[in-house]
Structure formats: structure tokens, C-alpha cells
């Protein structure tokens, strides 16, 4: 595994993938790591909050339907502490009304599942480019 540190000695762009679905988690991790990002994972909402607050990732890719607290509640809690933390909601709830609901709840971007791998890379790339 490569060191999570970029060429200039600055920390590598780190994405927190929060998803209870093992397959989706693996897919994201595989794709983003191949795109050159550092990936850490969380299995549910509470864990996502813990990891986000303790490890301060560069952004979060957050599923919604998770046990315990859902992704939206987790996002609220994280943003209460870290208002500037970019959160991309990646959910299989992908009707138009759902997308609006997520944006209203404070999501920076919304990625509907299933997604094209290029879309995932592009969204993360946009946020990484801003940094």
C-alpha cells in the first residue's frame, strides 16, 4: 500500500467512504484508490461521524440507508463540527425528489447508485481540484 502522502510532502487527498453495503464499499475503495486517492471506510452512520471527526478526511462519500443513524443524520453531525467538510451523498434512493431532499439537507453533491465509475471519479476529482 502506498503512503498516504503526496509528492510535495503534503497529505494525500483522503476520501471517507461510509457504506453498510460491503460490495459498494469495496467498489468505491478500489476505484478511488486506483484514481490516486487515499480511502478510509466506515460501516454505519455513527462510525462515519467518529472517523470523520477523528481523522478529518478531505471529503466524505456517504450512503444514506445505513443502520443506526442514517447518512443524512451523520452528515448533519459532522457538518455541525466541520462546516466546510465536503459531503457527497451516494444513495440508491435516486428519485428526483430524493436528490432534492439530500441537497436540502446540506449535501455538496449527490451521486445516484448505481453509478458509472467515471462519474464517481469526476465528482471526487472536482472536490479534490478545489483544494
Amino acid at each position, binding site marked *: 500500500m502506498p503512503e498516504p502522502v503526496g509528492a510535495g510532502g503534503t497529505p494525500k487527498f483522503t476520501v471517507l467512504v461510509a457504506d*453498510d453495503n*460491503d460490495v459498494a464499499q469495496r*467498489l468505491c475503495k*478500489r476505484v478511488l484508490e486506483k484514481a490516486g486517492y487515499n480511502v478510509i471506510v466506515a460501516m454505519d452512520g455513527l462510525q462515519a461521524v467518529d472517523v470523520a471527526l477523528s481523522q478529518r478526511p478531505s471529503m466524505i462519500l456517504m450512503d444514506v440507508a445505513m443502520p443506526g443513524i442514517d447518512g443524512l443524520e451523520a452528515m448533519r453531525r459532522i457538518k455541525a463540527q466541520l462546516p466546510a467538510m465536503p459531503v457527497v451523498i451516494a444513495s*440508491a*434512493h435516486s428519485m428526483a425528489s430524493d436528490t432534492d431532499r439530500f441537497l436540502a439537507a446540506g449535501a455538496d453533491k449527490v451521486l*445516484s447508485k*448505481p453509478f*458509472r*465509475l467515471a462519474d464517481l471519479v469526476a465528482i471526487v476529482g472536482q472536490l479534490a481540484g478545489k483544494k
Partner: protein
Amino acid sequence: MRRATPLAAIAAVFAVEAAVGAGPVLAFPLYLTIIMLTALQLSRIESLETAVLSAIAILVPTLVRGERTSVVATAMLLALVLIVAALVVTAVRLQVFQKAAIAQRRADDTAASEERMRMMLEAAMVGLALVDGDGRWQQVNDRLGLILGRSRDELPQLTLEEVTAESDRPALVEALGLLRSGDIVRWEAELYQVRGDGTRVPVSVAISNTPGRASSQSLLLVQETDISARKRLDGLRDTLVAIRHIIVSGLTWEQAVPQLLGGLCTYLDWDLAQFWAADHDRQSLRVRHFWHREASGFEAFREESRATAIPMGFGLLGRVWQSGVVASIDDLSRVNDYSRSDLARGAGLNSVLAFPVVENGVVVGAIELLARHVRAVQDDEVTMLSTVGVEIGQFIRRSDITQALRRSEADHRAIFERSPIGIVRISSDGELVESNPAVLSMLGHDFEALRAGAWPDLLRAYDQAAGRQQMAPLLAGITSGSTVQVRAATASGKWLWLQLTATSIPDSVGRPEHVLVMIEDVTTVRETSDQLAEALESQRSANANLEKLDQTKTEFLSIVSHEFRTALTGIQGFSELIRDGGLETEELKAYGGYIFNDADRINRLIGDMLDLDRMESGRMSMRTGDVDINEVLSEAIARAGTSAATVEFEADLDPRLPIVAGDRDRLIQVVSNLVNNAVKYSPDGGKVTLSTRGEGGFALVSVADTGLGIPPDEIGHVFERFRRVRSGAAQSIPGTGLGLTIVKQIVEMHGGKIWVESAVGHGSAFHFTIPLAAEETSPLRRHA
């Protein structure tokens, strides 16, 4: 002077004797003349004195001269004659004088008496006069002149008849005739006379024959008293009484007006009266009522009045309207403030008065009175008419209200009689007082039957129904409009639904005097409304179901699409990775595995959903046959045991459990689902116990584990679609969320029940029942 007379007489005698020198005989006439003169002296003594002195004067010269005896005798005789003559003349003269004095005294007395009488007559408060047989005035006193307003010179040119008011003349003429004929000696009456200025004056008159004269040329004594003051007061009093009498007689305004106007004219001596009313918008006064004495010639005036609209403040009436004060014109010929003056005078009307009719402080009209004679209006009459105006105003107001009340009473009566709604009036103790025709025809009773029987029944029914609704009985504390529906039978035995609405009608002090009860036949309404309510209720529940169905469907769609998309995420993502190439064999294998699992999951989802749909829509057929539950369980354990090495299975199967009637494949599906769940939710191993028991007509099957257990807030939902316990350690346990839903459907399709007991950390136990095959109650069957 008198004292000197006798001396003068003696001197005269001597002078005569000396002058004539004649003898006494010759001188005698002279003496006699002297004596006669002396006799004219005032008193007898003086006369006698003078006669004696004259006699002495005659004798003395004779004696002195010593005349012869004859001469002396003659002289003495002469003296004697002289004295006697003097005495006689004196006596006669005295007598004459006395008589004259008496006569004079008498005459003086008469004159004085007459003077006194005259003064009395003149001073009398009573007018006195003599009239001759033709009724012509002969003598009048000042008072009479005053009463009649004419000079004493003027009167003798007139007759009694001529100064008497036209209306009273016939009576007067008749009375004069009777007096002349001597049939009566005295006539008394009250009548009107016409004064010099044309006004009329009421007088009390007494005419009597003067006594001691022949009736043919008799003079009549006329006594007159001016009774105008009394008459006016009487008139005012009578007017007020009459007006009040009319006002309280219970007449309507329309009926009363002619009587009021007529009364004013009769009692106050006017000829014509009109009531002028103000318009609604108070723009003008217009004539509303008219009254006049029996006389003609008023038509033109009446027409003109009718056509006239008098603005406020204009003319006599306009001023009265504006000011609310009585106003009058005594003589229309002298004043130019009356627009209809010419026509009024053309009709012979000369005086006019108007007084306001005041209602509640507002002048609502005026009454105009006109008279032919010139009429001076007195202050007390003005005051009285002001009062009358107010009383009439109040009367109008009362009359308006009364009329409105009568009208509304009539309206209410009509409503009562013709109303299709039954109305009864009952006394405060519940007795039926009155019933309208609608009630009678509704119930088919006559009034008596209603009063005696049907009404008391109805009252009881009301109270019972009211009691059930926690309402007061009809008679106790009725509040307005309490409504109750009761069953009631008609005379022909038909049952009706009647709606009773009771309203109490308070008397003037607020106590409930009567109770009105409205009775409506609501049988049809009630039946219809019952049906309607039923229809509405079923519609409502259908709507609720539809709504719920719709909501369920939306939720279902959302959940299903989420499940599919989640599964597809892996399939799409990993197949894209594989397609893009560059993967190592290990990776390819792993990704293929993910894809397969998700595809399989989708397949199972579709299968479960189709199953569920078929079961729920009743389209799933059951192949019912004999099923040995113990055998199904044993097979399930055998299958599960090979794949779940961490879990220990235990079977507690009742060997006497009868065969059940069911679809074997479906029952296998139930059991394996429960067993799979038990294994899945026992991630750390543990024991799964399967047991059977016969209970009543059912086989009771239990699948218990020692796994995670179900949290209390989830346990009520485990049989719902897509409900999966995902908290804590259970979150990563895969499933479609449809398994238990399908299990429940299958059990219920067999006529059984399913339930669950669970405690977090201790495990869960699912129990279900399946009815035993009806004819197969023998426990020996399966071993046969």
C-alpha cells in the same frame, strides 16, 4: 223778609187809606187784595197775623176818628171779613200747598227710583233689553251692547233674530212665537249670537213676557249672559275627553282619524279639519284625512289641499311643522300667509288654526282646523291643542305598533295553520293546548285523541330519548330548540321517526308560559340518512384503504427500487471494472463473485416479490395434501446443518403429532426460511431448537435460536415487507426483507397463525400453527 210782611201789610193799609182817603168800604177791595197777598204768606200763622194786623189797621182809624157806630160796625165787619177771608184763603192755600207738596214728593221719589233702576240696569253683568213683538230691539243696556259688540244706537235697527247665529235662528223664531201667543211666558236657551265684528258669541238667554201688558203689543224682556268663557272651557274639556275616548277605544288609526277630526270640529266649533302627514323623507306635508261639517262648498278647497305639498317652514302649516308650535290666523282676509286663502274664503272659511302632531318628540304631521266664522283663538285652547297633538302622536305610534303586531299575529296564525311542519302548543305542565292540522294529519288522530293519548306518549318518548342523550326532559329547563328524534306510531299503526324541537315561549316577565313543539316527520330523511351514512362509511373506509394502498405502493416501489439499485451498484460497478480490463486473476474472481451474489440477490428479490404478490392477490394455488411436519423439520435441519457449521441443531419433535393438511413445498419454504434466519442471526454460533407439538386442532411448530434477538421496537414489525433488523451486529446480515412476510402469508393461507418471542442478546423464538387434517386425528397414521 217774612217778618216784615205783616208790617208791610199794615203800612200798605195806612197808605191806601191815606191815599184814597176813602172810607173803609171803598178801601175794602184794596184791603182784600192786601189780605189775599198776605194769605199767600208761607205759613198759616203769618197769614193770620197779617190779616189781624190788617183788620186792626182798618179799625184803628175809625175808632180814632170816633166815627159813628155804623161806620165802626162796618169797619169791624170789614175787619172780621178780612180776618175770615184771610183765614179761609190761608186754609185753602195751605191745603193746596200741602197737596202739591205731596205730589211733588211723590214725583221726586219716582224719579229717584227710576234713576236707581236705570243705574242698576246699566251696571248689571247681565245684558238686558226689551224687544217688541217683531223682535226688534227697543231698549238695551250697555252690557248687552258689549256682549253683542254693537253700539246701543245700532241695535234698535236690528232684530233679535238678526243678531242670532243662523244655526240657532229656527229655535229662536219658534220660541218668540210661543211667547207672543202666551203659550209660554219664559224661554231660556243657550245660543250663539253674531257680534258686530262677525265673530260669534255663545250666550245664555232668557226671554220673558213683561207683565201687565196686553200680549198683542207685548214687549219682551231679554236677558243675556256671555257664556263664552264657560263654553270654551267646557269645549276644551269635552274635546280632551272625546279625543281620549277615541284614542282608548281600540280603533285603528285609520278608523279613528275621522272621529278625531270630527270631534275637534264639534267640540271646538270648527267647520273643517284636515290631517297633514309628513312624507317618509320629510320633504313635504300632504293631506291624509279630511273631515267637515255637513255643508257644501268645500270641494274646491279640499281638492286644492289634496294637490298641495307643503314644504317645511312654508306658510302656516309649514311653520307649525318646523316649529312644533300651534299657529293660527283669526281672519284670513287680513293676513297673507296662507296659500289656499282664496279658496278657503271662497268656501266661506275665514279662520284657520294648525297644531302639530308630535310622535316621540318629532313632528310627524299637523292638524288644520278651519271655521267659517272669524274666530279668536285663546291661549288655553292653544295649550289644549298642543296636548291633543302629543296624544294623537302617541296614538299613531301605538296604532302603528298594534297594527304591526296584528299583522304579525295574522302571519303567525297562517304559518301555524298552513305549515307542513307539525306545531303544537303545550302548557307549562305538558298539557296539549293547541295543535296545527299538520300534526293531526301526520299522526292520523283528531285533536282529542292527540291530547288524551298520542301526545302524552310522544312526551314520554321525548324524555326517554332526551335522557339517552344526556339532555333535559322536555318540560324541565327547556332551552331554545333542543331537538330529539323519537319513534311514534300513527293511528293506523305505521311507525314514524318524528323529530321534536321544543322551544319555550316566555311570558312578559320571562317565565316560560307556553312551549312550542315542532314535530317533523323525518322517517324518510332518517332512513335515507341511515343508508347514506352507511354508504358514506363504506366509502370512507374504501377511501382510507385506497389511500393506504397507494401509500403502501409508493413505499413499496421506493423500497424495491432501492434494493435493486443497491444490488445493481455492485453488478454495474464491478462489471465496468472488468470490462475496462487490466485486472489480475484474483481480482477478476472476487469481482465475479460480487456480481454473482448481487445478481442472485436480485433474482431472489424478484422471486419473493412475485410469490408475495401471488399470495396477497389470492392467485397462488395450494397443492394441499398430507404433510408430516416432523419430517419437514428433520429435512430442514439436515440441509442447514451442512452449510452452517457454527450452529448446533436440536430437534424436539412430538412423535404423536398427527398429519396436517397442507402444501408440502410451501411448508418447507416456511421452515427453511425460519431456520435460515435463526442461523443468520446467530453469527456467533449457538443453538437452534426445532420443536413440534399437537395442540387442539393444530400442530404447533417452534424455531428458537440463541442469537442476537430482536429489539423491542422492531419486534412488532418483523413480518412487514422489507423490515429487517439492522441494528448492531445484525446490520450486515443480508436478506431481501421479504422472507418473514412470505412465511406469515403461507401460514395464514393454511389457516394458522405465526408469532415471535424475543429478547435482545438471548435469541428469538418463532412459533406457528397449522390445522390438523380433519379426518386424520389418529397419531398412528404416520406409522401405518
